[in-house]
């Protein structure tokens, strides 16, 4: 034990190591051409908050291991645990998870991790969720949690702005439509960035910008809790615009990913 550890405040002294849980694949569901949801049986899962993530560890026959982080897609109130993974072409772990895994396969995961980019109905709102690509995954856990919370969930106004490459790349498209169409459901606005909008398209067709956020979001006076998740350039741009529109930087929580050439 080092001097550092010996002088921990007492609240931390009881900290227990986060264990590696064994996960068994129940089902792999294709979401879009590049993403899949893994439904997992994790017998000892301790529960999580919407927005948290897990570390996944795969082990090859020769003992080689690779770890990566993935957001949890399932809400706290529903088992089994689900992760939605985007397959990166030059990735080491994501091609296995999103393309190779099949029922009965086993690997390890550790979590839940991250208590900052997390939301519960009890935290209140309004709730503004801004996602790019597979950045929708932790936001979807929040929306599912809100939908599973009945009256208390509906009492929190929620709006969602999602940026995807094309209509076919919109993850959870039908479920989002269903969530948005019920009374008290979240307002959901899509934008696509790499394809000409198809006939009948009701969303935007450009990168997220100030007019879009002003239109699809809440006024800064409503002091929404804002969660932004996606690729770094999209998150940088959206967060910068939100602050410029007058949202308090402390109310804007971000999670950036890739491109890391890894996943």
């Amino acid at each position, binding site marked *: 034990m*080092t*001097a*550092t*550890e010996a*002088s*921990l*405040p007492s609240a*931390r002294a009881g*900290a*227990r*190591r*986060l264990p590696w849980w*064994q996960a068994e694949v129940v089902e792999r569901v294709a979401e879009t051409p590049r993403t899949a949801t893994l439904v997992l049986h994790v017998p000892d899962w301790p529960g999580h908050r919407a927005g948290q993530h897990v*570390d996944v*560890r*795969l*082990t*090859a*026959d020769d*003992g*080689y*291991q*690779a*770890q*990566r*982080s993935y957001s949890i897609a399932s809400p706290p109130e529903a088992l089994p645990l689900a992760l939605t993974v985007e397959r990166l072409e030059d990735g*080491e772990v994501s091609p*296995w998870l999103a393309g*190779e895994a099949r029922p009965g*396969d*086993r*690997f*390890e995961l*550790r979590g839940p*991790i*991250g*208590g*900052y*980019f997390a939301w519960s109905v009890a935290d209140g709102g309004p709730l503004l969720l801004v996602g790019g690509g597979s950045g929708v995954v932790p936001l979807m856990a929040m929306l599912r949690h809100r939908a599973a919370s009945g009256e208390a969930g509906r009492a929190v106004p929620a709006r969602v702005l999602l940026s995807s490459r094309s209509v076919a790349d919109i993850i959870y498209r039908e479920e989002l439509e269903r969530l948005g169409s019920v009374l008290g459901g979240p307002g959901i606005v899509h934008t696509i960035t790499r394809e000409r909008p198809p006939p009948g398209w009701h969303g935007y067709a450009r990168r997220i910008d100030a007019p879009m956020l002003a239109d699809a979001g809440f006024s800064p006076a409503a002091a929404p809790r804002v969660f932004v998740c996606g690729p*770094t350039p999209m998150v*940088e741009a959206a*967060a*910068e615009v*939100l*602050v410029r529109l007058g949202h308090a*930087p*402390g109310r*804007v*929580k*971000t999670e*950036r*990913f*890739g*491109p*890391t*050439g*890894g996943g």
Partner: protein
Amino acid sequence: MITTRGFTGRPRAREDRERVPPGQYLIEDFPVLSAGPTPRTSLDRWTLALQDGGSLLGKWTWEEFQALPQTEVTVDIHCVTKWSKLGTVWEGVTIDDLLEAAGLDEPPAPYLMAHCDGGYTTNVPVEDLLGGKGLVATRFDGEPLAPEHGAPARLLVPHLYFWKSAKWVRRLRFMEQDEPGFWESLGYHIYGDPWREQRYDGD
């Protein structure tokens, strides 16, 4: 340990194994991880303060900071989100030189909290910052830091996980007792040694 059917992983080079801590993988680009919007402080309003508890030990404007001895280091960096980047080149002022510039022969307390624009904090034992191990860096790869990488200045403590290398640093505060900073209060390890894979509380 369970093995995963059908997973082989990437080819591994021996030299990588010696330089890449357990659970990490190598990348070539430079990902950005921040908990909130990127703060933007203009250089004419920027200062760096050195504090012992509540009392001020030294304070430098951007111009004054540039006039301090500048040190270049080439180091490997390791992010708790699993990526490592080898041979990164940084330039800035060592904590040793900052202490000297403040007229101090030795640090006033054994722990330090870095305070940043945007409210981020992280704690580091002072011995991990001395002897050239810690820097307040203003340049990466020969260029001024990019805003999303911590401009104008970030702490650099490359032998610990990279969340300790706090971006947008403005204030270094010495403490008698160790206290958890931002991520350290949210389940991440109080010290964060990548070679002992101290990612989370209790590791």
